[in-house]
C-alpha cells in the first residue's frame, strides 16, 4: 500500500503464477512486474507460454496458482474500469463476422458505455456520447484507417487488419496496452506506422506490454525486456537481454525443454534420420 502511494506500484504485477493445459505445465513460477509508463517486450520461442500469459492477464484463462495485481490492487477491478486494452493476434479473430471497421473499433468503448445512462445505452451507436465517437475517430486516424471506416473487416488486407486491431486497443483509452504480436505478418510501412503510434502512446504515459519476435524493432524502441520460456529466463534492458549470447541461451533453453519431453524427442530423432 505504501509503495502504491509513493507511485512505485507496477502497472501489472504477477506473483507466483503457474498455468497448465491438460496437466502439461506452460508457465511455472512466474514473478513479473511491468513498470508504469514503460514499454516492455516479452520475447520467447513459440510455445513458450507468452500468449497463455496474455490470456491470463485478460481474464480469459484461469491460472492454477498465482496472483495478478494492477496498480497495486485486484486486476479484475481495472478490467471493469476499462483500463486494460488488449490487441489479439490476427488469427484469434473471426474475420467473416458481419461488422464494419468503425463498429469493430467502437466495441472498445462498450466497457465505458456501461457507465452511461441506461436510456443512452439502448440507442444505436451514432447517438452515443460524443467522447466515444471522438475516441474511435482519433484511433482510426492515428493508424491511418479512417478512410476505411465503413468497410467490412473481412475485406481488409493483412496489414490493415492489424492496424484496425491496434485502433481498437487505442480507442479504449486504457492505461495499459497488452499487444500480442502487433508486428507479426505486416509489411514494413505498416510496421513503422505501428511502432510510431506506440512510441507516441508511451510518451503520453501509457504502459505498453507486447509480445514480439521483431528483435530490431524491440532493440530500437522498448525500455524493458522479459525473456520467457515456461520460466522467466531473464529481465532487463534491451541491450542486456537482446544480446546475441542471451538470445542463444534462450534458444538452447527451449531445446533442452523439448528434449525433456518424450514425444518431442522421438520427433527430433525421426527428423535426424531423414
Amino acid at each position, binding site marked *: 500500500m505504501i509503495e502504491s502511494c509513493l507511485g512505485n506500484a507496477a502497472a501489472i504485477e504477477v506473483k507466483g503464477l503457474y498455468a497448465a493445459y491438460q496437466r502439461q505445465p506452460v508457465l511455472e513460477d512466474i514473478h513479473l512486474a511491468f513498470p508504469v509508463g514503460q514499454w516492455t517486450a516479452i520475447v520467447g520461442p513459440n510455445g513458450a507460454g507468452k500468449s497463455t500469459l496474455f490470456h491470463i492477464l485478460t481474464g480469459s484463462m484461469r491460472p492454477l496458482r498465482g496472483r495478478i495485481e494492477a496498480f497495486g490492487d485486484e486486476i479484475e477491478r481495472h478490467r471493469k474500469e476499462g483500463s486494460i486494452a488488449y490487441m*489479439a493476434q490476427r488469427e484469434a479473430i473471426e474475420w467473416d463476422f458481419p461488422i464494419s471497421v468503425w463498429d469493430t473499433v467502437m466495441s472498445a468503448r462498450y466497457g465505458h458505455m456501461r457507465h452511461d445512462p441506461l436510456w443512452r445505452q439502448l440507442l444505436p451507436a451514432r447517438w452515443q456520447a460524443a467522447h466515444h465517437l471522438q475516441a474511435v475517430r482519433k484511433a482510426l486516424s492515428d493508424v491511418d484507417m479512417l478512410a476505411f471506416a465503413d468497410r467490412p473487416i473481412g475485406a481488409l488486407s493483412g496489414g490493415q487488419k492489424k492496424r484496425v486491431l491496434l485502433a481498437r486497443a487505442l480507442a479504449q483509452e486504457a492505461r495499459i496496452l497488452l499487444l500480442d504480436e502487433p508486428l507479426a505478418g505486416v509489411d514494413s510501412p505498416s510496421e513503422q506506422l505501428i511502432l510510431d503510434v506506440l512510441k507516441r502512446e508511451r510518451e503520453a504515459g501509457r504502459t505498453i506490454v507486447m509480445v514480439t519476435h521483431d528483435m530490431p524493432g524491440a532493440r530500437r524502441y522498448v525500455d524493458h525486456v522479459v525473456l520467457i520460456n515456461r520460466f522467466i529466463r531473464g529481465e532487463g534492458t534491451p541491450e542486456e537481454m537482446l544480446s546475441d549470447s542471451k538470445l542463444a541461451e534462450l534458444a538452447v533453453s527451449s531445446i533442452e525443454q523439448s528434449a525433456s519431453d518424450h514425444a518431442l524427442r522421438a520427433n527430433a530423432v525421426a527428423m535426424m534420420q531423414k
Partner: protein
Amino acid sequence: MGTPEMLHTLDAFSSTLVGGLIAALMVLVNLLPDSISDAFQYAFMQRALLTSMMVGAICGLLSCYVVLKRWSLLGDAISHAVLPGVAIAYLVGLPFFIGAFVTGALTSLGIGAIERHTRIKSDAAMGIMFTGAFALGIVLISKIASSTHLMHILFGNVLGVQHSALLLTLAASIVALLVVWLAFRPLMLYAFDPTQAQALGFNTGVIHYGLILLLTLTIVASLETVGIILVVAMLITPGATAHLLTDRFKTMLLISVAVGVGSAVLGLWLSYTFDVASGGTIVLVATSCFFLALLLSPKHGVLMRQWRHRHIGSVND
C-alpha cells in the same frame, strides 16, 4: 390470497392479447387476394399463422448467433435433449415446456462440463449427450403415448396448436426480443470476440449460459410448430441466408427474422393448399431462400463470384 382471481385475470388478459394480435394479423391477410386469404378464414389456421410467424421471428433472431458462434451442432443437441423432458413432464403431470426446458438446459450444461473436464472434444460430447437424451425420450414415450403423439413432438403439429402453446411462444418471443435488445452490445461482442469481451470486464460465463438458455427457450417454444427435428433448420438456415446477404450485424438480424417469418407464412399457406406436412414445408421454403441467396447474393453469391472471376480474367488476358 386471491391467486385464482389473479390467474383468471391473467388468462382473460392473454386471451384478449392473442385475440387482438390475430385480429390485427387478419386485417393484413384480408388485404391479400381471396385465393390466398381464404385459407386463413378458419380459427385454427389463424392460430397457426400467428404461432408460426412468432416462431419464425425468434428462430431467425437466434439463428444469427447460432451461425456466427458455430453452434449449429449445439442447437441440434439441445433440441433433441428436449424430448425426455416432454415425456417426464407428461408422466408427472407438469406443463410439457417446463420438463423440456429443464432437460434441454441440463444437457447443455452437461456438454460444457464434459468438454471442460475431460479430454473428450466438444463435438463428441454433444453427440453422446444428445443421442443419449433422445433415446431416453423415445423409450419413455413409447411406454406412455401413441405414435401420433410422438410424431407431433418430432415433426410439429402447427394446425392443432393449443392456446397454451401459443401463449408460451408469445412469452418466449417477448423475452428473446427484450434480451437481444437490452444486451445487444455484450451479445454481439461475445459472438465476435469473446476474449475482448472478457478483457473489457464483461462476465462471459453469464453471457454464454444466458445465450444457451435463450436458445433452449426458443427451441421449446418452437416445439409444436415445426417439431424437435426441424427446429434445428429454423435455427441455422435463416441466419446462414442472411450471412450471405450482408456485412452488417443489425442488417443480418433483420434479414434473418424476415426469412424466418416469410418462410413460416409461405410454408403454412403452401402446406394448406397442397395438403402436406406444415413443419416440413416451412423448412423447405427456408432452405429454398438459402439456395436463392447462395446463387444470387450480390456480394457473396456463386453467380456474382463466377462473373467477377470471368470479368477479372478477361481483363488479365
